[in-house]
C-alpha cells in the first residue's frame, strides 16, 4: 500500500526546522537572566501560596469553630 512515496528520509531524526543562528545564540545569551528571574518568581510564588494556604486554613478553622 505504501512505500510508493520515494521521499528522501535521513537515517536519524534531528529537528528538521531551521533554528536560525541568531535565535539559537540569543537563547544561550539570555538563559542566565531568564533563569535568574524565573527562580525569583518561583520563590515569591511559593511564599504567596504558603501565606494564602495559611490564611485559607485559618479561615476554615474559624468557620469550623463557629459550626
Amino acid at each position: 500500500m505504501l512505500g510508493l512515496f520515494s521521499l528522501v528520509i535521513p537515517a536519524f531524526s534531528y529537528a528538521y526546522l531551521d533554528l536560525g543562528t541568531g535565535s539559537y545564540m540569543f537563547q544561550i545569551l539570555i538563559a542566565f537572566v531568564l533563569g535568574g528571574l524565573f527562580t525569583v518568581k518561583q520563590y515569591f510564588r511559593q511564599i504567596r501560596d504558603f501565606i494564602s494556604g495559611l490564611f485559607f486554613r485559618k479561615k476554615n478553622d474559624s468557620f469550623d469553630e463557629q459550626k
Partner: protein
Amino acid sequence: MNKNSLIRSSFRDPSGFLFLRDGILYRQVNLVYKDHYEHLLKSGLYNALLSEGLLIEHDEYADINDGIAYKIIRPEVIDFISYPYEWCFSQLKDAALTTLKIQGIALKYQMTLKDCSAYNIQFQKGKAILIDTLSFEKYSEGEPWAAYRQFCQHFLAPLALMTYTDVRLGELLKTFIDGIPLDFAVKLLPFRSKVNFHLLTHLHLHMKSQRHYSKKTFQKKGAQFTRLAFDALVDSLESAIASLKWKPEGTEWVDYYQDTNYSSEAFLYKKQVVDSLIEKIQPKSIWDFGANTGIFSQIASTQKIRTLAFDMDCAAVEKMYLDCRKRNDSYLLPLCIDLTNPSPAIGWQNQERMSFIDRGPIDTIIALALIHHFALTHNVPIEFIARLFSKLCNSLIIEFILKTDSQVQKMLSLRKDIFSNYNEKTFEKEFSKYFEIKETIKITDSERVLYYMINRGH
C-alpha cells in the same frame, strides 16, 4: 493503482506525513521517528495531553517494515480547517498559549516540541488543539529550543502587531507563510512596545541577535542551555503572550445590532423563521456569512449543528469568539472571512493551504442582511452572487432587502442609483437558475424578505 494522495501541506518533516486513501486520512510515521513516537506513548505524555483536550487522538492502523515507514496511524479529523490569518485576536492568542502549555507539559515527560507552526493548531469543538502528533521529540538537556524562532514569528510578532499597531495586521500571516519576520515586525511596532520587557527581549533584542549573527558562521558546542533556562524561556513567553490584550471596539460593524433596521417584533419574527427553517432542514453543518455577533449562528449551534460563523469585521468575530468561549459552545466556530475577497490558496505551488472556496461545499448557508452589501457597495451582479452560493451549499437561507428599506436608501443617498437590476424579480430570476425557491417569507414590519432555496445541482 496508487489510490493514496499526499496532503499538500505535509512534506517538510522527515518524521512522517499525512495522506488520504479512499477518503480516509492517515499519517505515516517513519522509522527515523520510531524512538520519539514510542516515548510519546510510553512516557504517558500522549495520554496526559489527550485528557486535557490538547492533542488530537489517533488509532494505530498498521505496522510497516519497509526500511522507511514504521507505522500508519489514523488521526482524528478536524471538522473545518482554518488558518491563523482567519483567526481573530483571541483565537491566535489561545493558539499561542495552548502551544506553550503543551510545551510545558511535554518537558515534564522529557519531550519537547520541535516546531511551533501556528498551522499545527486547529480549532475543534471550539477549542485550540495540536494536530501534529509527530511534533514531539525526546528532550536532552543542553540544546536551546529549536522552535523558538518559529514561535516568535508565528505567534508573538503578529499578536504584538495586533495589540500595538493595528488588529488587521494579523492578515500579514497570509503573506508570510512562516510567520512574520522579526525585523519587519519590529519596524512596524511603536516605541512603547519596548517598554514591555518580554517584547523587548523576544522581539526587539531577538531581532538584533538575528541580524548580528546573520553573516557569521557558527560551530555548535556542548550543553549550554539548562532545563531551568528552558522552563524560564517558556514561562517568559507565556507572560509575553498574556500581556497582549485587545478590546474589540471601534470597527464599522461591531455595534451593528444596536443600529439595525428591525423593530423588536420584526427581529423576533426573523429569529423564529430562521429557527424553524433550520429545524426543518436539519443540516449536518451550516456556514453563516455576515454573522456579525453570531445571534443567528447560535440558533444553529443551539440545535447542536456544527456551525461556522464568518464575518469580515475582526471585532465582531472577536466578540463572537469570546462569547462562545464563555458559554463553552462546542458547536460554533467564528472566523474572519470576507466573502468579497476570501482566503486564497497559498504556499508551495499555491497548494499548501487551501483557498476558502475549496473548503466547501457545505450543507446549508445562512446569508442574512448580507447580499445587498455585495450588490450595492461592491457592485457585484446578482447573477455572480447566485453562482457563488450555488458552488458553496446544498441549501440556502437568504435575505433580500428591498430598495425601499431605509438602510438601503441611506446607502444609495450619496450615489447615483445605477442598480436598476436590484429588485425582487431579478433576485428570484437569477437565483432560480441555480436554486429552487421553496419558501418566500416576508418579515413583518420591514422591507425584507427571507427565502429558503435548494440547490438544483444536489
